[in-house]
């Protein structure tokens, strides 16, 4: 960019023009790269204008809520392979326009600029409850659904402000949690799973896949039990100590079939021996597991080793797709002492094993791996 500016200056083009062009280019690039941040800035400017002109309040509220919620959605979409929808705020009944309200669809009341927090809490909770994982929630129990809504709303709010979280916990979270031990237990489990870094990339991901399936014979109770088992499995996995070979690393479900395989054995890595890991993962793929998650240290040498395992698996199983890789700070336990470490997660999808329309009677008993 500097080279271009120097060249244009030497050619005799005015500095003002160039500065303006550079500024405009930077702004355009910023808008494309960070639309939510741009929207947030617009809402701040509109909020200031709304102090002298009330009409700007509509713009400020709309873009404030959209930017905050959509920035959270963008983050979940980065942390899963799903494509969760964002939100668009639509004003109704403005300037005496005709009211066209759809049967059964709620219309939220937004308060003026002095109630931004209240507006955001209301919109965030509405979003998690009515939009996020909507298709999957049809398969969940009331408590499972409520626990995910509460936990996800708290995650949206904590990104913005701790005061909002406190308010939400006081008004919504605590009264519900105090009423139900089951709800309390689910929340405790999500906290453990989230600390390890697999709440969104594995739990929310698996629930999202579940929502895309159609069950012809509606085995609701069985699915609810299976979701409970998946959460128990992830919680127990999240609490395992480094080197623990006893804790189960495969979730064998009838409706959701996934396995988590740890690829971090120091001895195998130092020997450069990828075969044991390749065979463990290959066994899952042969046995019809839809998703296999390989997890290990995010340190440079371990990542190289994991990528070698991945290449070998893909060569043996061309049907398998490496849908996403994640790098994040996850928690591990060494002799029960928690430690934050760089973590590498690879999500493999076995396209040959995936079925979208299911009749329980046609499902083969799941083999372990």
């Amino acid at each position, binding site marked *: 960019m500097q080279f271009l500016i120097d060249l244009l200056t030497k050619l005799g083009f005015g500095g003002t023009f160039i500065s303006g062009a550079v500024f405009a280019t930077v702004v355009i690039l910023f808008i494309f790269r960070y639309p939510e941040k741009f929207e947030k800035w617009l809402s701040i400017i509109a909020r200031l204008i709304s102090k002298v002109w009330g009409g700007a309040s509509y713009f400020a509220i709309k873009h404030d809520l959209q930017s905050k919620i959509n920035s959270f959605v963008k983050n979940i979409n980065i942390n899963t392979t799903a494509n969760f929808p964002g939100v*668009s705020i*639509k004003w109704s009944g403005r300037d005496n326009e005709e009211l066209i309200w759809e049967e059964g669809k709620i219309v939220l009341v937004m308060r*003026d600029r002095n109630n931004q927090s209240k507006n955001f809490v209301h919109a965030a909770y509405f979003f998690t409850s009515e939009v996020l994982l909507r298709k999957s929630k049809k398969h969940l129990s009331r408590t499972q659904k409520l626990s995910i809504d509460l936990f996800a709303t708290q995650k949206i709010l904590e990104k913005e402000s701790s005061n909002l979280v406190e308010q939400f916990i006081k008004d*919504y979270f605590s009264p519900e949690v105090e009423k139900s031990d089951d709800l309390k237990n689910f929340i405790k489990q999500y906290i453990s799973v989230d600390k390890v870094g697999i709440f969104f990339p594995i739990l929310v991901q698996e629930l999202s896949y579940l929502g895309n399936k159609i069950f012809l014979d509606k085995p609701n109770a069985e699915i609810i039990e299976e979701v409970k088992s998946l959460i128990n499995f992830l919680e127990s996995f999240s609490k395992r100590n480094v080197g623990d070979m006893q804790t189960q690393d495969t979730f064998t479900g009838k409706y959701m079939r996934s396995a988590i395989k740890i690829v971090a054995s120091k001895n195998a890595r130092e020997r450069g021996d990828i075969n044991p890991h390749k065979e463990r993962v290959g066994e899952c793929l042969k046995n019809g597991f839809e998703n296999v998650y390989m997890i290990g240290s995010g340190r440079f040498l371990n990542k190289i080793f994991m990528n070698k395992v991945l290449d070998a698996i893909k060569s043996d199983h061309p049907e398998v797709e490496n849908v996403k890789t994640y790098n994040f700070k996850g928690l591990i336990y060494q002799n029960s002492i928690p430690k934050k470490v760089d973590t590498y997660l690879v999500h493999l999808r076995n396209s040959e094993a995936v079925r979208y329309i299911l009749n329980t009677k046609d499902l083969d008993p799941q083999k372990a791996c």
Partner: protein
Amino acid sequence: MLDENKEQINTVHENDLASILLKLGLKEKIEKKEVKCKFCKTEISFENIYSFLPESGSVNIICDNPSCIMELMKYLSEKDKTKSEA
């Protein structure tokens, strides 16, 4: 994020509440304290409306008490579940 991958949230601004309630034929009733929250049966005022829910040809109002908001979400998801099972 592309526009087509967005869910619409229908909202009304509190500045428009009076005219909307007038159109719905509820303004006078609210002033006379005759409208109650769908769930807790508290009197509805201009200050405590959380949302409108159009159902069976009429419009229900839900107050901004957090327990009523929770109740509304449970009510909507049950309805959604029943609809998908039908």
